[in-house]
């Protein structure tokens, strides 16, 4: 063991801040990582833990602050620079070259020599096999990456980190896509690497795993580091409190609404690998929240209800009648509407005008025999824009020019035109500024007041607490709690959302 590395931590980060487009996502974070430790980064979605990890790995550069690597200040300007400093980031879904062989993926960009020098195929394969043996995994190294399971792809990434002798390996939520057995294999390898004196940063939502694997934890909240401590010094309750401890935003008053008949009823809905045995009811006038961590399967349930990726088993009843929904147009005909999570991908037609975007789901209302009546289209769109107070320059403007909040309103307007009985909103206020958020909350409340049934998927606890009559919580593909409004608190929701038992995971 060379001298000099002993007394210095592997990483000493001081005053790290990071802003994206003027918004500060990381504030003044100090953190040391020691040799031979497994260090967990915990926090809610958007708390800053991933941003911090990416700064260490050279994906982002900090706005302020310095990082010392092995005691000397380093400029981690790119992922390549990070790799030269012995830092490797393993993405949850590894970045690889699917058409190249495993062995090539291990060494690509790392082989020395002139560009025209030969590829040492034989030696490459030998080295790769040796690494796989070292890790104790049986992956044939001459096969292409394409088709490897995610667990195996992660193993290849770990092997790559070893091939370049990385001293710091950052794993960003590596266990989310893995089966329990694969998680065990990963942990065994992680412990062995730690015992060799390497440092591992482990990002996860699963407290049980953090407890089983990690030596120290650092908790992030709203871009700040809250605490760093050894895992023994913290109870689960402490950790959850540190994660959500921000002051609660003021509660909104939900309008008093008479709750009516059951509009949507789901029984035993399952889709292997995504969600299992989902049961719930939403009544007219009711807002039912669906909480949980990202990846818990909430969006998959919504997509199944709307017929985008239908479930394999289970019954859906609408107004008491069993229905089969195989595609979105059936869902629309049945009175469902779905405002998807990622509007940039699934929601807007970026280059088309606002009016076209508003009327996109109701072709029959604006056309006769397939010929569009532009006067009608314009009229419907203008009405919607006034009702939702969408701020725009012209109805003919491409929607891409609007702010995020106003784009989201346009999508809501589109679905309101279909006059749905049942409205599914997936993270409707993500990326929207506070002012528009409040307007949205009013609108959602009003929609319920008009007798619509609303299923609201949200990762923002205050939002669920403020709006919902009941909160369902999903974790690892199952519904783990059904909390009435009176009993819902940030703690009760988080307790149900954080997966604890490895055995209890969805198959």
């Amino acid at each position, binding site marked *: 063991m060379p001298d000099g590395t002993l007394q210095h931590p592997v990483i000493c980060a001081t005053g790290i801040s990071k802003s994206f487009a003027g918004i500060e996502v990381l504030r003044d974070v100090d953190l040391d990582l020691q040799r031979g430790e497994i260090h967990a980064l915990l926090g809610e979605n958007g708390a800053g833990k991933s941003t911090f990890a990416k700064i260490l790995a050279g994906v982002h550069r900090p706005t302020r602050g310095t990082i010392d690597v092995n005691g000397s200040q380093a400029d981690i300007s790119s*992922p390549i620079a990070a790799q030269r400093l012995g830092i490797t980031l393993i993405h949850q879904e590894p970045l690889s*070259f*699917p058409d190249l062989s495993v062995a*090539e993926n291990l060494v690509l960009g790392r082989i020395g020599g002139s560009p025209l020098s*030969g590829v040492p195929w034989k030696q490459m394969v030998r080295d790769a096999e040796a690494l796989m043996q070292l890790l104790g995994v049986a992956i044939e190294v001459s096969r292409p990456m*394409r088709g490897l399971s*995610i667990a195996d792809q992660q193993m290849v990434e770990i092997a790559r980190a070893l091939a370049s002798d990385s001293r710091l390996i950052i794993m960003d939520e590596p266990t989310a896509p893995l089966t329990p057995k694969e998680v065990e294999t990963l942990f065994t390898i992680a412990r062995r690497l730690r015992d060799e004196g390497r440092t591992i940063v482990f990002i996860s939502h699963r407290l049980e795993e953090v407890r089983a694997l990690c030596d120290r934890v650092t908790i992030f909240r709203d871009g700040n580091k809250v605490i760093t401590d050894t895992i023994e010094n913290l109870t689960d309750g402490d950790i959850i409190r540190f994660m959500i401890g921000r002051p609660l935003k003021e509660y909104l008053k939900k309008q008093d609404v008479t709750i009516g008949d059951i509009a949507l009823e789901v029984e035993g809905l399952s889709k292997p690998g995504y969600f299992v045995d989902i049961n719930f009811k939403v009544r007219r006038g009711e807002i039912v929240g669906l909480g949980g961590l990202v990846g818990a399967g909430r969006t998959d349930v919504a997509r199944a209800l709307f017929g985008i990726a239908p479930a394999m088993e289970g019954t859906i009843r609408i107004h008491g009648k069993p229905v089969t929904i195989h595609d979105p147009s059936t869902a629309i005909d049945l009175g469902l509407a779905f405002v998807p999570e990622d509007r940039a991908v699934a929601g807007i037609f970026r280059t088309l005008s606002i009016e076209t975007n508003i009327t996109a789901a109701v072709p029959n209302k604006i056309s006769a025999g397939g010929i569009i009546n532009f006067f009608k289209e314009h009229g419907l769109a203008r009405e919607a824009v006034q009702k939702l107070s969408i701020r725009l320059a012209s109805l003919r403007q491409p929607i891409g020019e609007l702010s995020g909040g106003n784009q989201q309103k346009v999508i809501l307007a589109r679905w309101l035109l279909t006059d749905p009985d049942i409205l599914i909103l997936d993270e409707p206020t993500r990326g929207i500024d506070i002012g528009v958020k409040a307007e949205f909350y009013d609108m959602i409340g009003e929609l319920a007041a008009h007798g619509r049934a609303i299923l609201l998927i949200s990762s923002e606890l205050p939002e669920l607490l403020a709006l919902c009559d009941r909160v369902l919580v999903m974790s690892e593909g199952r519904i783990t709690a059904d909390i009435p409004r009176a009993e819902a608190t940030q703690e009760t929701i988080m307790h149900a959302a954080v997966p604890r038992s490895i055995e209890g995971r969805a198959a």
Partner: protein
Amino acid sequence: MIQKLFLRREAGILLMIILFCAFVGIMRPRFLTLDQFRIILLLVPLILIGAMGQMLVITARHVDLSIGSIQGLAAMLTALMFKFHPEIPWGLGFVVAIGVGIILGLVNGVLITAFGLPAIIVTLGTLSLYRGLTFIVSNAKQIDRQFVPAALKAMSQDSPSYAVPWIIVIAIAVALAAYWFANHTIIGRQVYALGSNPVAAPLRGIRVNAVTILVFAISGALAGLSGILYASRWGFVNPSNTGTGFEFQVIAAVVIGGVSINGGIGSIPGVILGVFLLGCVSAALPLLGIPGTAQAAIYGAVIVMALLIDRSVRIRANSALSGLQRGHA
């Protein structure tokens, strides 16, 4: 698994060639003679040389539509040199043609990388630009047979021997070099990596711009080489005919040869077989009494068919593999 699929794919093209030749042979026994084989061998070198460059470009997830115009301009400038400076040794024509090709290819590569423009648009533009320059430098006039050096013309006929003239030897040498480059050099593998995952490539230290410019320069160089060989093969250079439609034949051959338009996948042997299949088709058409006017239509049909095959193979491969992954999870 994928490799087995490729073996099957290459075997599939070979099978198509055999079936096609058998069919034509039954209809017109003359098709299966050595003389006819020599005709095919003389038809394919230009396409083969162009296809080796194009294969690298497409594997890197780009496309080069300008190679026909590069062939035309390189051939024209070389022929003009022959006409107005007959004192210059004719062998230098190769240097001129390849040099012109490299420069034109570099222009493509630099426009694409420096401005982040899509290759299909840039090379569509230069296709027209280079063709236009050919008209300007030649004053829209053909360079006739008497100006093309006899020794150059002999390279496509009986030099060094009637059985294997130089043009075939050159094509084989280019194919071998391409094979070595694609499979046994570090930069060749980086071409595959870039096409396989352009997002990951820079993160792994691949100099994306350099690799991109290089493949376009190679494509240009080979198109230039095919230009002087055009003059050798046909004995004249015509501003509107030389190289027109060349990109179409070449891309057809590359795609039939199993190179994925989505990048990352492609083998040199497959492309060679693809070139041969097209060569057999064009040699057979006149024998079968199909008029030359229908050739373009046949080519078009063949390229569309090849794309359909490519797509169905990809879908099957992906579904088989994702099934595998699910089973794993």
